[in-house]
């Protein structure tokens, strides 16, 4: 009993040390630091949007439409005279919410199906892999456009599910490969030998050993999902107006680009700012965790 406790203690300690080690490495990396700072800023923007924004983002003022940046309107106004700065602040909420929700959705489905595919019987594996390949055979943005058009609705839940669905095969394939690697390990064979159920083995023994690469992939997918959502909104297939989102700001900017370039400049600048932040942090995280995952 005594020795078991000490063993547990040591195990816990190494786990904590591992986490500490990773965080140390991430923050040692210059780009990791910059990325972290950028993301903190965006999260603060999203959380404190109501306090930071000088105007109501939906407040229309047609007399003062398409104004350039000034002291009263930091980033100018859009085609309805709404304050672009306030809309960008509120838009960060949409971007973060959809990207985090979609990545969670994709990784959960991908993990479950990937584990089943890697751990289950060969026939099941074949069927599931063909299914993943079929989803992947749709060019992802075109697939999302098709689904949204066909469903005839767009909004945060639809976008989350559609984007999550187009991204999940990546996770499924990664998790499947990881599962296959772990499958042959002694501790799994012994877990099987003592008669543990397959579900318990999958969630208790396989999952903890494969979740690392999954988290890194999720971190690296967030910027691409943010861009994806902005692209859909830019086409008019994203969140419904008047909800402010960066993609719709860009769309309005594009439609009025001859009269005022400011919406495109600020909306686009914001998008670059955020995607860059997430990418820097994601890469630093990956390098700290395992540099071999570079080709993820």
């Amino acid at each position, binding site marked *: 009993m005594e020795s078991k406790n000490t063993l547990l203690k040591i195990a816990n300690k190494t786990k904590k040390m591992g986490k500490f080690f990773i965080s140390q490495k991430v923050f040692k990396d210059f780009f990791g630091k910059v990325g972290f700072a950028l993301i903190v800023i965006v999260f603060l923007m999203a959380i404190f949007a109501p306090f930071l924004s000088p105007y109501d983002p939906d407040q229309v003022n047609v007399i003062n439409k398409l104004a350039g940046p000034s002291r009263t309107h930091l980033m100018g106004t859009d085609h309805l005279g709404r304050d672009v700065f306030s809309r960008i602040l509120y838009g960060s909420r949409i971007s973060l919410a959809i990207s985090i929700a979609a990545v969670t959705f994709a990784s959960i489905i991908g993990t479950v199906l990937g584990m089943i595919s890697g751990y289950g019987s060969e026939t099941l594996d074949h069927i599931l892999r063909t299914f993943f390949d079929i*989803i992947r*055979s749709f060019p992802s943005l075109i697939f999302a456009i098709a689904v949204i*058009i066909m*469903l*005839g609705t767009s909004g945060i839940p639809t976008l989350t599910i559609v984007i999550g669905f187009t991204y999940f095969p990546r996770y499924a394939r990664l998790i499947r490969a990881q599962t296959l690697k772990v499958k042959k390990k002694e501790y799994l064979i012994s877990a099987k030998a003592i008669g543990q159920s397959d579900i318990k083995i999958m969630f208790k023994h396989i999952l903890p050993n494969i979740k690392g690469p999954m988290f890194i992939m999720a971190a690296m997918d967030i910027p691409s999902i943010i861009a994806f959502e902005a692209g859909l909104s830019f086409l008019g297939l994203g969140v419904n107006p008047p909800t402010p989102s960066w993609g719709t700001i*860009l769309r309005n900017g594009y439609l009025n680009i001859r009269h005022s*370039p400011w919406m495109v400049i600020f909306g686009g600048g914001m998008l670059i700012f955020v*995607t860059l932040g997430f990418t820097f942090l994601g890469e630093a995280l990956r390098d700290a965790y395992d540099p071999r995952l570079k080709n993820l």
Partner: protein
Amino acid sequence: MFSLIIRRFLLGLITVLGAMILLFILIQLVPGDPASIMLGPRASPQLIENIRARMGLDQPVYVQLFRFIFNIFRGDLGTDVLNQRSVSTMIINVLPYTIALATASIFIAVVLGVPLGVYSAFYRNTILDRILTFASISIITTPSFLFGLFFLLLFSLTLGWFPVMGGGESGNLLDQLYHLVLPAFALGIRWVGYVARLIRSSVLEEMHEDYIRTARAKGLSEKIVISKHVLRGAILPVVAILGVGFGNLLGGAVLIEVIFHRPGLGYLIYNAFRTRNYPVVQGALVVAIFMYAVVNMFTDLSYGLIDPRIRKGE
């Protein structure tokens, strides 16, 4: 090699078939009756019935599915119900524009990306290498439609160097190339970053291989070692990523084509869904999926050609 080709071909066929079935299911999910949606609320029941019969919507679902797939393989993608044009002809008319755009982007990516990557690898950890790395990360993370918007704003509207919209006068090759420059750069510039990073890391990896040392030991000039030996091994991951990237390019092309009002598959889809012209959306999607599958197949097969190790491994 032959069995590899057959197997890959079968896999491609299954994928395309599966994608068609999925597409068909999606179409079934369209809320409401496609005929009445298309004709609007004021259409008479008689007219709706006619259109339904013409679209085959009065048949049982499995007949519709069979017919859907059969027609696709015959090359018949249906007719644009609004003005009776054949969807296949519409697509054939715009497809060259999209293919030109995608090819030009990949060309730009390889022509600029490979030298930058090799350069970065040879001068690794110098300031120039760091600047290049930083630039390529920034370029990769920026969505391509933003490049489209910025290029449009800067080079077309502000400086007036390039045309604002369209695909160029048909038949006039120079004019078409002139119209291709901005969209192709906008779409391809991210891939310059990708290719550069990829080439950098794989060149670094290859340089430590034994056969490179052997080549050097033989007294080959550095130029030949790089171009004949290092690059040949290092190019493989690039081929892989370009295959995957083609799907991405097709998706990105929708946005770029919309921004530059350039005719193409993406612009066709965009316009068709705005007018709820479902047969056109369907047909264009089928072609996009098919193209994607074919390119992926060739990518997989080209591994075998470039790298004999893969062929032998089979």
